[in-house]
Structures are given as C-alpha cells and as structure tokens.
C-alpha cells in the first residue's frame, strides 16, 4: 500500500485547491449538522418537559392541550389509589391558550405565545422550575411569571411589564423562571382561576395532570379512568405526550435539513471530483513511477480514494468546528401542535458528530472514486515517457 503520508503531503502541496475543496465540504457539513442539532434541540426541549411518573389527561380525540377541554369534575381524577398527592392535591387542572404577541424588536412581526393557567400547586408539581428573577406570582391574582427563553422577546411579556388578555384585564409579569431548558421556558404561567375568568371559560380546564405513586401503576390508572363512563378522556404518560408533540417539529427540521444537505453534497462531491481529477492528471508521471516501483493497481486506487476521503473528512472537521459555535445561540422554532414559538438551543450529540464525519467521508469516497479509477489505469510506461 502507498503510505498515507504521500497523500497528506500531496494535499499540502496544493494549498489553494485543498482549502477551496475542503471549504466547500465544510460548508455542507455545517448545514447538515446544524439542521440535525436544531431538530435534536427541539426534541430535547419538548421531551424534557415530561416525567415518567406524571400522567396527562386530555379530552378523548384531542391531540394537544390547546384543543382539549375537560369539565370541572376533573378533580375526581385525583381520587384514586394510584395517584400521589402533591401538596395535598391529586389532580392539577390547567388551562392553555395561545395569545398573539408582537415581537419586541420593533419589526412589527407577530407570533404566538403559550399562556398556561395553573393552580397554586402547579409550580410545586414541577420541581425543576426555579424562579430566576423577581418572585413567584401570588395565587388568585393576575400576576404571572415568564419563562426565561422568551422573556423580553415580545411586547409586554417581560419583567415588570403587563399585557392584556381581554379589555382591561391585564396580566402583570412579576418574575422569570427557568425549567432545566425544557419547552416550559417558552411559556407564560399564571393563576388558573383568574385566567379562566378572564377568558370566560370557568367551567373547563384544558388538561389534567396527576403524579403516580409509582410509574408502574400507569396501566392500572389508565384502564380505570378511560373505562369510567363519567369521563370521556384519554390518559397518556406525560413523557409520551411530549414525545409525540415533539415529533412533528423535530422531524420537520431534520427532514428539511437533510434534504438541503444532500442536495448541497452533490455540489461538494462534484467539487471533490474536480480536485481529484486535476490531481490525477498532474501526477500521472508520479503514478507511473509508483506503478513501476511495484505498487499494484489496487494500491493506487486505494491511495487516491483515501486522499479524497482525507480531504473531505478534513473539511468535515472544519465544518464541525464552526457548527459547535452554534451551541451558544438559540433559535425560535414553531411547535406545530400549539402554533406557538419555542426557543431552542442547537444541541450537539455524539451521534450527530459521527454522522457528520461519515457523511463527509462518503462525499470524499464518491467524489474521489472515478478519478482514482482513472489513476489506477495509468500505464507506467506511457506515463513515464510523457
């Protein structure tokens, strides 16, 4: 086999060409990895809102909290032996609406923000939630707290500001909260009864949550509640519910990103092919010499394919280096289930990094194959005579 050092040195000699080709591949890998990191970020933000021992109950047929409605007799859903009492309460009923808010950046753009009304126990029900500035809202008042991911993003939805749900019925923001990076951080939380009264929906809640004494009690609880004719509800593990919520958004991001990256990679592969073709043409004398020294056709073929792959993986590593900078920024994406925005971070995983490297190696392989075949066919005698 031809030593790999030969290939590395050849690449370093053709500096401009190497940089241009690797740069093209770096850009493709950047786009590929960025899209997958965004999809991963969306999935992580949305699924980390759920817990294994929590159960969410929606109206039968509803896919999301937004379109669901359960009557006021929901409190009975907590009166079962499988349910743990959190702060003395079994069933947490919550109301969820999306409101139209104007972006605070002055662009006049509109987006939707999710507002959740919950009883006083609602915050205690989610131990990951921490007030990071200001204070917790007083129960039974129009005070609300805003998730830190969207705080200040919309007009009126920031600390010490207020926005109206209806005429002369404002909600006052008194603090910001963090929720371990979950999609709760893109919500506004207030008092269940006040928000229901403002909306004129005193008789329903959107969803009901209960905490099980043990995750294994889920089936027993589901059978009992779904079988109860009084309620016409659907019982889901909270984690499964959020997993399903995340599916649409994260699939959309990953699929769109992958399609774009595959199209881009065609251009990058052709670029690699041009470079390697040039290399083969310029080095026919060298190749002839190698053949004359006794290297087989296969060795030449492998050598040139390897050179192309080294070039591509080098570009891939550069692209990955830049894409890691994205983990410091966040990006608004749309939750297709609620029409509202969630702000997510780019999330790198080992799978994405390895995937991007394999992707760049594949570009090098495919782009370098034809030139390498050409190289292996060089006749030593003719090449050395030329």
């Amino acid at each position, binding site marked *: 086999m031809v030593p790999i050092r030969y290939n590395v040195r050849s690449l370093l000699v053709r500096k*401009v*060409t190497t940089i241009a080709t690797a740069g093209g591949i770096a850009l493709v890998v950047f*786009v590929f990895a960025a899209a997958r990191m965004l999809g991963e970020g969306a999935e992580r933000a949305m699924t980390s809102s759920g817990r294994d021992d929590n159960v969410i109950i929606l109206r039968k047929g509803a896919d999301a909290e937004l379109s669901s409605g359960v009557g006021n007799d929901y409190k009975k859903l907590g009166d079962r032996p499988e349910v743990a009492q959190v702060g003395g309460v079994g069933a947490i009923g919550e109301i969820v609406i999306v409101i139209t808010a104007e972006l605070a950046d002055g662009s006049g753009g509109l987006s939707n923000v999710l507002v959740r009304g919950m009883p006083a126990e609602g915050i205690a029900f989610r131990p990951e939630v921490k007030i990071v500035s200001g204070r917790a809202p007083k129960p039974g008042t129009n005070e609300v707290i805003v998730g830190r991911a969207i705080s200040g993003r919309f007009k009126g939805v920031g600390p010490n500001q207020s926005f109206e749900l209806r005429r002369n019925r404002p909600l006052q923001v008194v603090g910001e909260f963090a929720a371990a990076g979950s999609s709760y951080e893109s919500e506004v939380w207030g008092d269940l009864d006040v928000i229901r009264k403002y909306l004129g929906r005193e008789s329903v809640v959107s969803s009901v949550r209960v905490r099980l004494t043990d995750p294994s009690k889920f089936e027993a609880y589901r059978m009992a509640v779904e079988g109860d004719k009084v309620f016409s509800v659907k019982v889901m593990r909270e984690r499964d519910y959020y997993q399903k919520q995340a599916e649409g958004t994260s699939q959309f991001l990953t699929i769109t990103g992958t399609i774009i990256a595959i199209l881009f990679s065609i251009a990058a592969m052709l*670029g690699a092919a*041009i470079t390697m*073709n040039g290399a083969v043409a310029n080095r026919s004398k060298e190749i002839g010499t190698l053949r004359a020294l006794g290297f087989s056709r296969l060795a030449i073929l492998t050598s040139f394919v390897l050179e192309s792959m080294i070039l591509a993986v080098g570009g891939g590593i550069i692209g990955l280096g830049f894409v890691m900078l994205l983990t410091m920024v966040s990006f608004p994406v749309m939750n297709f289930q609620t029409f509202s925005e969630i702000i997510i971070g780019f999330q790198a995983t080992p799978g994405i990094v390895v995937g991007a490297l394999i992707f760049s190696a594949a570009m090098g392989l495919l782009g370098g194959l034809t030139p390498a075949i050409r190289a292996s066919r060089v006749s030593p005698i003719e090449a050395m005579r030329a």
Partner: protein
Amino acid sequence: MNAGTYPARNLFRRRGRTILTLAVVAVVVLIFNLLRTVDHGWKVGAEEAAKDRLATRHKVSITMQLPKRYIDDLRDPNKIKGIKAATWANWFGAKDPRERTPFFAGFAADHHSWFDVMDEMKVDPAALEAWKQTRDGAILGDVLAKTLGVKVGDNLVIASDIYPGEWKFKVVGIYTPLRKTVDRNSMVFRWDYLNDDPRASFSKEQIGWVMSRIDDPSKSAEISRAIDKMFDERDDQTVTMSERAFQLSFLGGFGAILSAFDLVSIVILLIMMMILANTVAMSVRERAHEYGVLRAIGFSPRYVFAFIVGEATLIALLGGLTGALLTMLLINGALGPMMEENMGAFFPYFRTPMSVIGLSLAGAVVIGVISGLAPAIGAARRKVTDALRRVD
C-alpha cells in the same frame, strides 16, 4: 483572436473538468432556485390574495372566538362604510378517521354568504342550492374529494381536533379554484349544523373569524381601523388584517425557518464560489507557461486578465443556463404541481418565478467574475520570464 474567442476555444480543453464544473454551477443554481421558491411560495399569497378582502379575528388569540352578533355590526352600513358583504366561519380542524390523509382544513361557514365573499372558490349553482337545502351538507375541494375518494351524494364521516366524536356529512358539491392560491384540500360545511349540535355547546353563538369584502381596496387600512375601533370598547376586541396576514398568523413561528433559508441560500452560493475558484485556479496553474508565451508574443497583461475572467464567467453563465433549464423542468414541471397537490395548505402556489431564475443567473455570473479575479490578477502580474520558466 480576442477576449471572446480565446476563452470560448479554451473552454473544452479539459472537457471532463469543464463538464463537472458546469454541473456544479447547474446544481447550485437549481438548489438556490428551490430555496428561493419555498420562500416565494410562502410569500406569494400576500400578492395573490384578494386585495378587497379583510379578515377580522379575536385580538388576543387565534383560539378565542367572537360573539356572533359582531357580524350584524359589521354588516350595518350605518356603523361601517365601505363593506360590500361579510361572512364568517369557525375552525373545525378536520381529521379523517380512516387516515387517508393526515390532516386538512375543515371549517363551518355561513351557507348564505360564504361563497359570495370567497368567490375564487367556484361552485356549481345547483350544488350551492343543494347546500342551502341540506343541513349536513359539505362542499369539498377537488383535490380533497379525490384523496378521500368521495363524490357528490356520498356520505362522509370526519373527526375534529376541537369538537368531540365523529361528525356525519353529506357531500353536496365540489369546489374548483379560480385563483392559483386557493387551497384545494379543504372542506366547508354549514355553521348552523355545528352551532346546533350539543357537542359544540361551548362555542354556541360564537364565530371564529369574519371575512369582509370591501368596495375600495385602497381604503382597506382605513376600514380595518374603523372595524377594530368599533369593537374596541367591547369585551372581545378584534384585529382586522389582510387575508394573507390572517393565514400567516397561524404560522407565525414559521418565519424564523424562512430566515434560516435565506442564510442557507447564501451558503450554497459560497460553496459554488469555492468550487469555481478552484477550477479556475487549477487551469491557470496548468497554463502558466502558455500565458507566458502569450505575453511574450505581445499580448498585454490586460488581455491575459480578460482571458481568464472571461473563461470563468463563460463557465458560470453556461452552468447557470443549464441550471435554469433544470429548474423549469424539475421544479416548475414536476415538484411544483406535486407540492401544490399535497401541501396546498402551506404552499398553494409552488413555482419558481422568472425573477428568481433571473436572480440566480445574475448571481452565477457575478460569482464567475469574482472567482476568476484572483487567479487572473496573479497571472497578469507574473513576469513573462517567470511564467515561461515555471514548470509544474
């Protein structure tokens, strides 16, 4: 020999490389056009939407409804001047229980006025008459009817996102589009059928949104303000906007993805620039000796410069034209009609406009010139003796 013929003759000296480079430019132009078409398809509704139509909805939330009596206020010429006709609808969010299609737009509308205001949806007068006679009658878009495999006279069972249970309808008509931005994948049924059902008691006598047709499109801003002012003192305030802005308010969060697309379409041009610059640099390096000869026999550096930039531009232009041709064939000929049929709710119109094709061609030529510049300057500046001596 001049600055035109020399690059043209040289173009296919390295046939393989030129063809590959042309392919790169063509593919890049195609991708660029695709990305811009997504963006254009998203925004085209605004240009194509009826200019004489306004949508009024709840100011606070797309999920909140308005009292039905608002329609009487809107229709009263003593309160608002300039409204010719107004109609209303409620979102139903239809799902097919048999899952032949994942999701489509279903809404309950006023059967007396809906198709008068939404006149780009063409319905047979007999079907319209049948609708007015049939309480559970539904009118479907032609594409939706095909997907569901139903025709006039058939029964149809649909579930909703919002209202519990299964709902039975009778198909009384099919609408066809008179304008390219009409979603052909939606279903409309009678508002009174929904309103009188006990399962819809929580939204009894409430309406989702109002569509008004105005006399004079130039007064739309003025009329919008007048409408919102009329309801400003009421419990449920309204916001009135153009029809497209209304549609987009459901998908506001989508905007950020489109700005990411803007960025990505610049990235693809950068990739093209790198690859093109590489090709030119490789050719110039190989022909350094030849340029030396040209200089030695009397061509000025300016000529050498023009030969190199000219060749780069020519490749970019030819590749760009190929890409434009591919765009017409693949996007406008194949992908566009497919998108319009399957994703009509998002992209009722998905074709690459000439303005985008023109932009991509101009972009290709500019990048051709830029990528030729650096090697051309280098070659033009090189001393004749150096160029002739150079061997590599």
